[in-house]
C-alpha cells in the first residue's frame, strides 16, 4: 500500500514538473549550434534588467533593477541602480565589486568561486551557458521562445542553485529571462529589457577607478 501511495505521489510530482516545462522538446545540440552561430554576430549587448527575488513566506518580491553591458571580449558591467547601488565588472581576468564606495578586486584565475560565478554570469548573458558541462541541459521550444533548463551536476553549484531556467528569444537568440531556483521554491527572476546590440561600448564602462 505504501509503495502504491509513493508511486502515485511520484507520478503526480513528475507530471507537475513536466507540465511546467511548456513547449516541445528539441535537441540541445541543434539549439547550441544555432546559438553559437548567432552569438558570433554579436559584438556587444547593452540592456536594462529587472530582478525579483521570490521567497516562500514573502507576500511581495524583493525587486531591484539596473543596467547591463557586455562585449565580445567577455567584458561585463552588471550594475544595480535601484533600490541600492551595486556594481560588478568582469574585465581582463578580474572580478571587481564596488558597493558603498568600496572596491574589491578578485583574480578570477586564482579564485575558483569567482571563476565559476564569472563563467555563469557571462554564459547566461551570451546564451552559451547550456554548452557548459557543469549542467545537465534540457531544451524546449514554443511559438515565441526557446526554454532551456539547466541542473547543476557538480556539488558546489548544487548547494547554491537547484535549477536555472532561461528563456531565449526566438527571433534574435538573445536571453530574455533567467530564473535561478534555490531550495524550497525560492527563486530569483531576472528579465532583460530594452536590448541594444552591437553598439560601441566605451572602455570606461569596464573600468572601476
Amino acid at each position, binding site marked *: 500500500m505504501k509503495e502504491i501511495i509513493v508511486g502515485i505521489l511520484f507520478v503526480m510530482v513528475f507530471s507537475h514538473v513536466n507540465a511546467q516545462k511548456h513547449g516541445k522538446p528539441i535537441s540541445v545540440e541543434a539549439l547550441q549550434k544555432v546559438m553559437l552561430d548567432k552569438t558570433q554576430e554579436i559584438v556587444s549587448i547593452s540592456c536594462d534588467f529587472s530582478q525579483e527575488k521570490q*521567497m516562500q*513566506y514573502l507576500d511581495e518580491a*524583493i525587486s531591484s533593477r539596473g543596467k547591463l553591458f557586455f562585449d565580445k571580449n567577455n567584458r561585463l558591467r552588471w550594475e544595480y541602480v535601484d533600490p541600492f547601488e*551595486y556594481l560588478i565588472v568582469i574585465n581582463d581576468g578580474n572580478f571587481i565589486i564596488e*558597493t558603498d564606495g*568600496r572596491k574589491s578586486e578578485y583574480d578570477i584565475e586564482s579564485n575558483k568561486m569567482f571563476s565559476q560565478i564569472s563563467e555563469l554570469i557571462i554564459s547566461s548573458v551570451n546564451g552559451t551557458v547550456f554548452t557548459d558541462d557543469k549542467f545537465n541541459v534540457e531544451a524546449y521550444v514554443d511559438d515565441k521562445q526557446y526554454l532551456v533548463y539547466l541542473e547543476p551536476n557538480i556539488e558546489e553549484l548544487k548547494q547554491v542553485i537547484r535549477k536555472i531556467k532561461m528563456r531565449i528569444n526566438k527571433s534574435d537568440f538573445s536571453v530574455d529571462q533567467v530564473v535561478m531556483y534555490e531550495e524550497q521554491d525560492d527563486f*530569483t527572476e531576472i528579465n532583460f529589457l530594452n536590448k541594444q546590440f552591437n553598439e560601441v561600448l566605451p572602455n570606461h564602462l569596464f573600468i572601476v577607478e
Partner: protein
Amino acid sequence: MRYCQIICLLLSSVFFHSCSSSKTSSYHKSELTAPLLGEHNTALYKASINVFGNYFSGLVLLKHNAEKDDYNIVMLSEVGLTICEFYSHDNEIVLRKASSLFKSKKAQSVLAEDLSFLVDEISEVKAKSDSRYKSNSGIIYSTNSDGQVNQIRKRRLVNGVRIDFEDYKKGIPTNIYFKNKGIGFSMKLKLIKVS
C-alpha cells in the same frame, strides 16, 4: 591597625550604600520595545559587513508575522541568492538555512545573536538613569528623547557587542551599526524599504 579599621569602615559603608541604591531601582516590566519592526511587517536593509578586515555586502530582510509573533530574518546577496536564514520566536533565534558560502559556525552564531537584538522582546529592566536601562541578563539599553532605543550594549570580555540605532523614521531606525568586540566583526545596516 587604625588605618585598617578606617579602610574597613569606608569599604563597608560603600558596600551598604550600593546595596541600598540597587534596592530602590529594581527590575520592572519594560516599556521599551524592540527596535524593529514596530507596526511594520517587512524591512529591507543593505548590509555592509567587515570580518577581520575582509569586506562583504548583501541585503538583510526582516519579516514579522503578527499572528504568530515570530520573525524570519534572511541575509541574501545583491544578485538574489540566499546566504542564510534565521527564525526568531519567543526570544529564541535559530538558523534555518545556510548556504555553502556561509559555513563558519562562529560567524553564524555571532550574526544570529546580533540580529536577535533587533527583534527580541525587552521584558524586565532596571533604570540606571532617565535614558539608560539594564536588563536582568546584563544588556544595557539607551534611549533617545522619544523613548526609542538608540543603543544596545552587551559587555563581555570577548564578543561583547554594541549596537547603535540612528535616524528613526516611521518608528524604524534608518541606520544600524553593530560592533562586536574581540572578534573583528562589524556590520552596518542601511534601510532600503519598509512595508
